[in-house]
């Protein structure tokens, strides 16, 4: 979706505010937000792409008003509501409804180190033909899907060169909507900065994006 999360190239966001030796979490609830999001994800009712898509659907005014980990909680609550894991009345009251099922989370303390060390690989060990080869000129398609996509607006319609082929990965656009993994090649594509931004960019600079086969066409 063409949302405000797709920020590459926007102006007006102010100066960078570097923080020297800042803490990982500035408030205790931020750490809890991180942990709860992980724990709820372990139910397997949604996936990483669906989570990102849910965050992207936060209304633009709220997206900018609330902080990073608040977005996590807002999106998590929506996903829990959609999946019947919490009732609106429970969110309102802060306590379980009478008779609501109490379930233990599948992510137990013992399983946390396994999740963290093993990760959740998105690469798929299946044979899929690559439509493009390293060194080939390609163009990012001019698509504007209303669902989830990882093709930023600033690259659409722009031409670049395949820098490397990372192999086969699940496809976020379909995975986010639970329409299947549609595994396909992911490539790093190099775009000259001037192709993206015009003459204001330095001639030798470039931006590299990781793009799925479905995002590309021959240039």
């Amino acid at each position, binding site marked *: 979706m063409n949302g405000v999360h797709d*920020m*590459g190239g926007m102006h007006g966001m102010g100066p960078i505010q570097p923080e020297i030796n800042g803490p990982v979490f500035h408030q205790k609830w931020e750490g809890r937000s991180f942990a709860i999001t992980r724990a709820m994800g372990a139910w397997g009712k949604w996936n990483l792409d669906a989570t990102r898509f849910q965050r992207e659907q936060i209304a633009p005014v709220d997206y900018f008003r609330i902080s990073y980990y608040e977005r996590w909680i807002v999106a998590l609550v929506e996903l829990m509501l959609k999946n019947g894991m919490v009732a609106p009345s429970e969110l309102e009251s802060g306590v379980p409804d009478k008779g609501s099922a109490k379930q233990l989370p599948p992510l137990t303390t013992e399983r946390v180190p396994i999740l*963290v060390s093993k990760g959740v690989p998105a690469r798929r060990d299946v044979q899929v033909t690559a439509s493009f080869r390293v060194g080939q000129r390609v163009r990012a398609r001019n698509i504007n899907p209303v669902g989830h996509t990882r093709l930023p607006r600033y690259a659409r319609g722009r031409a670049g060169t395949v820098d490397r082929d990372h192999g086969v990965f699940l496809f976020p656009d379909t995975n986010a909507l639970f329409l299947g993994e549609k595994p396909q090649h992911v490539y790093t594509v190099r775009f000259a900065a001037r192709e993206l931004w015009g003459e204001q960019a330095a001639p030798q600079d470039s931006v590299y994006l990781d793009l799925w086969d479905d995002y590309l066409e021959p240039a």
Partner: protein
Amino acid sequence: MVAQAWSDPAYKQRLLTNPDAAIAELGYGGLQGEHMVVVENTAKVHNLVVCTLCSCYPWPVLGLPPVWYKSAAYRSRSVIDPRGVLREFGLELAADVEVRVWDSTAEVRYLVLPERPASTEKMNEAELAALVTRDAMVGVAKVAPPREGGSA
């Protein structure tokens, strides 16, 4: 990892060509770092990592991202004005340096191998490691030579 790459050319080669295995050699890997790419900064090439769409960041090697990495200012401007962003971090690049910005749009995570600073020829790996900063591995800073107060 960076200090070992500076000290051991064979390790550096493995880190650049087979990063997942080379990183695992030192015991790192896992969630949000399942598929790594390491890019090398030199006197002529400066790499900078961003995620314009959310805040993808290589957790196993760098930890969770700092607030500025997740900020709208960094996400919006790194791709269109990397030199201006670096200037705000106190890093002025020469006009003839090539800037490569890596927008982490997929599940590949990027780590910058910073340039080894001058006057460190006699330092051992542990001393070198103490010079390396997170910011240098994202590409918003260089590793400062010793005696200049460090880059942290």
